[in-house]
């Protein structure tokens, strides 16, 4: 009995122990499966599930004529994701053989490791990719991707900008509009196991990629190329440190072309700033148009009044205002045409500092032009606590104010169109997948700045600047140009005063002067040895204006349909070959090889001149014009210009360094210097043209 009792007591102890253990386990389950469950579930999800993004195709960029200027091409990239050490070894030895690397370097170079994902090479050529596909070991993968391509190379590249290897905008328009261009990438969910094998859970992606929005720029690529070419030539010719230029349609604010050229910029193949927006400068005399507009609008003086210009030196207390050329009494027209600082300064003092300050603000100084453009500087006007005469005079001649190039062009555009300040526009419209434009951007008027009468008066002054003022070299036979020169001293930060040897030379103007269509500005920094705006930037402006006029593009229409959404369907560009000195037959051969046509002035001989010049970009099927002479002729002889366009003929005249005049429009049908005549420097050639 006693034994029995002891037995049950001990069984009881065992049972108690059993209960304790089960209770402990149950408590632990509550801890793990209820208390910690949300956290643990997330962790398991992270280690067992993953997502893969599907790249959306990036929106294309067109120029205003419907040419693709930024395109997508498919490419393959090589990546490694080895599963075990054996695969790491195989991949390493394959890569060492394939890429001719020294033995034993591949693992380190490409950071290969078990279950480690690494890129080997992005954007392989097709041949390389297919070769790798044939013989690559396990653990190496070829992945499809999209890379950006730019059919026009560096033309307009400052505007378009760059993307990184993952097609994400890094600079320029690609960055500015990245969100819209990029679209939304899609997502594929996959599950993986502890050995890093991945498998897709569903056939369909969780979300499909939404392609990016294609955009049409207001830029005309042909005009852009002309601008870049002339700007480069001008900067080099005048030994400038930097050239900047912007041309826009003054009737609606659409930017037609803009670029900078920096001769010290060696590597164009990396993201650049669009310096016409990001660089500020003191505009100098060009700024006088703002003051002049204010003075005329408020009738500060009558047009017949004259003002004493202090013989070039106006002392105002400790400060002094100078003119480049000494003047005594000038009327207001002459003040503008001859760019007298003292004359405009004196009137501005009469007008008032605060008024001039407010007017400048209204003209958009200190306000950004393209909202959100990466790095755009708004510029600024210094506003003293009390306006002294010198402060007012300084502002009126464009000192103590900083602007970007586009702002200044837009100021001039407002004068050109009769007083309306438009918001500069870079996007013309969007394009749908079929190539049809939609969502056309309306021109936005910021302010009405002056009456038509004021604008007309001012425009006649500005025409005078070119006809007989500081910009006589800008006067063109081909197109009537009006505008204002600026030759501003550059502020020397080290010496804390304005430099006497470094100038910002600029010319802002518009054409045709009678009925302005295009307004532009050319700015050069520190041109040497000639530093006057009228002699440097002005000449470049004239050349650009002439070439624009000759081409006469359909600047002001929106294309009804983009040329093509696919790069195969648009014309390819070709680099113009150098045909100079070649026999006509071989020149013909070379052009045909490049899918171009050759037009010659004679049937045989050597090429002595070609248009366009070598290294320019033109479209396939375009024509190259050559002038040929037989080799025994020493003197230059006049070629037969009949049938040439004005553009071609004027290029040839410039080549011969001949003065010439053009009447009519269309193609040349008569020339005063007959074909075969020996060309002398003093001869003048009259060209008569008529439409065909």
């Amino acid at each position, binding site marked *: 009995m006693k034994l029995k009792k002891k037995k049950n007591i001990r*069984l009881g102890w*065992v049972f108690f122990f*059993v209960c304790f253990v089960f209770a*402990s386990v149950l408590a632990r389950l509550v801890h793990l*499966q*209820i208390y910690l469950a949300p956290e643990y579930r997330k962790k398991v999800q992270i*280690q*067992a599930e993953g997502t893969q993004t599907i790249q959306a195709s990036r929106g294309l960029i067109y120029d205003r004529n419907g040419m693709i200027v930024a395109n997508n091409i498919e490419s393959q990239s090589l990546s490694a994701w080895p599963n075990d050490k054996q695969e790491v070894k195989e991949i390493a030895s394959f890569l060492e053989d394939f890429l001719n690397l020294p033995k034993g370097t591949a693992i380190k170079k490409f950071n290969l490791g078990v279950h480690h994902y690494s890129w080997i090479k992005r954007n392989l050529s097709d041949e390389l990719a297919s070769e790798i596909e044939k013989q690559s070991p396990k653990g190496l993968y070829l992945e499809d991707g999209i890379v950006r391509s730019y059919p026009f190379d560096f033309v307009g590249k400052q505007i378009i900008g760059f993307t990184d290897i993952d097609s994400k905008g890094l600079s320029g328009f690609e960055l500015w509009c990245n969100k819209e261009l990029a679209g939304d990438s899609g997502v594929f969910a996959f599950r993986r196991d502890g050995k890093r094998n991945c498998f897709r859970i569903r056939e369909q992606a969780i979300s499909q990629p939404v392609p990016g929005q294609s955009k049409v720029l207001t830029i005309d690529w042909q005009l852009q190329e002309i601008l870049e070419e002339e700007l480069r030539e001008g900067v080099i010719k005048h030994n400038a440190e930097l050239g900047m230029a912007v041309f826009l349609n003054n009737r609606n604010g659409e930017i037609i072309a803009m670029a900078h050229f920096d001769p010290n910029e060696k590597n164009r193949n990396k993201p650049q700033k669009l310096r016409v927006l990001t660089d500020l400068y003191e505009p100098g005399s060009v700024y006088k148009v703002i003051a002049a507009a204010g003075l005329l609008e408020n009738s500060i003086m009558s047009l017949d009044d004259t003002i004493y210009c202090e013989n070039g030196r106006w002392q105002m207390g400790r400060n002094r205002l100078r003119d480049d050329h000494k003047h005594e009494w000038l009327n207001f027209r002459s003040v503008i045409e001859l760019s007298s600082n003292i004359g405009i300064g004196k009137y501005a003092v009469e007008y008032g500092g605060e008024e001039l300050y407010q007017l400048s603000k209204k003209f958009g100084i200190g306000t950004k032009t393209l909202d959100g453009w990466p790095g755009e500087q708004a510029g600024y006007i210094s506003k003293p606590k009390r306006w002294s005469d010198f402060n007012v005079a300084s502002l009126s001649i464009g000192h103590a104010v900083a602007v970007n190039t586009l702002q200044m062009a837009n100021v001039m555009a407002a004068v050109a169109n009769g007083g309306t300040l438009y918001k500069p526009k870079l996007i013309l419209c969007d394009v749908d997948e079929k190539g049809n434009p939609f969502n056309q951007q309306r021109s936005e008027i910021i302010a009405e700045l002056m009456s038509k009468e004021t604008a007309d008066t001012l425009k006649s002054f500005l025409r005078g600047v070119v006809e007989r003022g500081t910009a006589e070299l800008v006067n063109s036979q081909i197109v009537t140009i009006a505008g204002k020169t600026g030759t501003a001293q550059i502020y020397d930060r080290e010496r804390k005063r304005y430099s006497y040897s470094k100038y910002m030379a600029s010319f802002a103007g518009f054409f045709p002067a009678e009925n302005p269509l295009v307004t532009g500005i050319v700015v050069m920094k520190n041109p040497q040895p000639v530093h006057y705006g009228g002699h440097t930037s002005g000449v470049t402006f004239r050349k650009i204006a002439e070439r624009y006029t000759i081409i006469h593009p359909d600047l002001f229409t929106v294309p009804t349909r983009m040329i093509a959404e696919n790069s195969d369907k648009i014309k390819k560009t070709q680099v113009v070959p150098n045909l100079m000195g070649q026999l006509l037959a071989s020149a013909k051969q070379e052009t045909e090889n490049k899918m171009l046509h050759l037009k010659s002035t004679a049937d045989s001989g050597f090429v002595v001149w070609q248009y366009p010049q070598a290294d320019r970009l033109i479209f396939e099927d375009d024509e190259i014009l050559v002038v040929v002479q037989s080799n025994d002729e020493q003197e230059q002889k006049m070629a037969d210009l009949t049938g040439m366009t004005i553009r071609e003929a004027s290029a040839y005249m410039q080549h011969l360094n001949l003065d010439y005049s053009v009447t009519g429009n269309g193609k040349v049908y008569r020339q005063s210097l007959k074909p075969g005549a020996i060309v002398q420097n003093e001869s003048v050639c009259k060209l008569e043209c008529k439409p065909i």
Partner: protein
Amino acid sequence: MRRSAKTKSIDEGLLLAYIVLVITGLVMIYSTSSMIAETKFGSNIFFLKRQLIWTILSVIAVYGIIKVNLQRLAIYSAPALFVIILMLSLVFLMPSRNGSHRWLMLGIINIQPSELFKFVMIVYLAFSLSNPKRKIEELKQLLFPYLPLIGIGLMLILLEPDLGTTIVIALSALGILFLAGARMKHLCYGILPIPAVATFVVFGLGYKEARIIDYVASIADPLKGSYQVKQAALTLGAGGFFGMGLGEGRQKLFFLPYPHTDFIFAAIGEELGMLGLMIILMLFFYIIFRGLKIASQQPDRFGYLLASGITLSLFLNIAINLGVVTALIPVTGLPLPFLSYGGSSLMVSSAAIAVLLNLSKRRVKT
């Protein structure tokens, strides 16, 4: 003085719990092993097929054991124990699997002598201790012959190495001696050296030292433990209360180690949730409860010791496995009775149930 009547029927509740657990085991073995089987052996039913064969063999064994007269068979337990000790020495001649010598590979079937030792040792102890001549209260009689006989067996199993089974057997033996009425003082002599020896073995010899260090860190935060502990805890946590659903577990895909054997409890926890695990815990508890109840109802000392010993070893097996999987005790490789994949384990667990069923026929109502 006849206060009780013999009942002829077996414990049906116990049998039912056993059947439910084995069927659950088959389902979960398929769910957790199919991916591994497919990858390793090219057939997703590789493990299921084998386990099915073992289940059939186990059912036959259960049927057989229920029929036999255990008391008569128990006479042979002493010589059988010698044979098994011989087998335990033979495993060292076998090629190692996963770094240990646990299996005796006899052509078509592989058996674990340690499992047999556990089972036969309990029968032997029950038989030997029920001898009326034995005076369990005396230390001399307690030490001999049990200490050398069991000690050698335990040493061999520890050397395999198989710490988990060693602990189960040692604790089962101590438990039976406790239930047989050995004096607590004497039992303490046996228990006290264990922590000392364990400390020396672990930190002196460095045996599984890393596991112990992992363990200490992992009790509070299982994620700080070893990979196995971490994955087991994550697996349980991911299941939550209701589970991911049968077959929906993600951890069995090579994250959780041994999802169909030692860590099947965690894998079930992910798919069937805490709800499923509570049902399984109830079944386990019910089996242990019935085992102890049967023990208390035995008319003689042999039945009492055999039933309680068998129940105890079954319980220790379950407790240690669950402790490991829930990161409560250090990792030792031990299958979960009835549920884990593995022929020897199923066979021995089934035999244990069969013995309890057999003894349940001899219950007396008190």
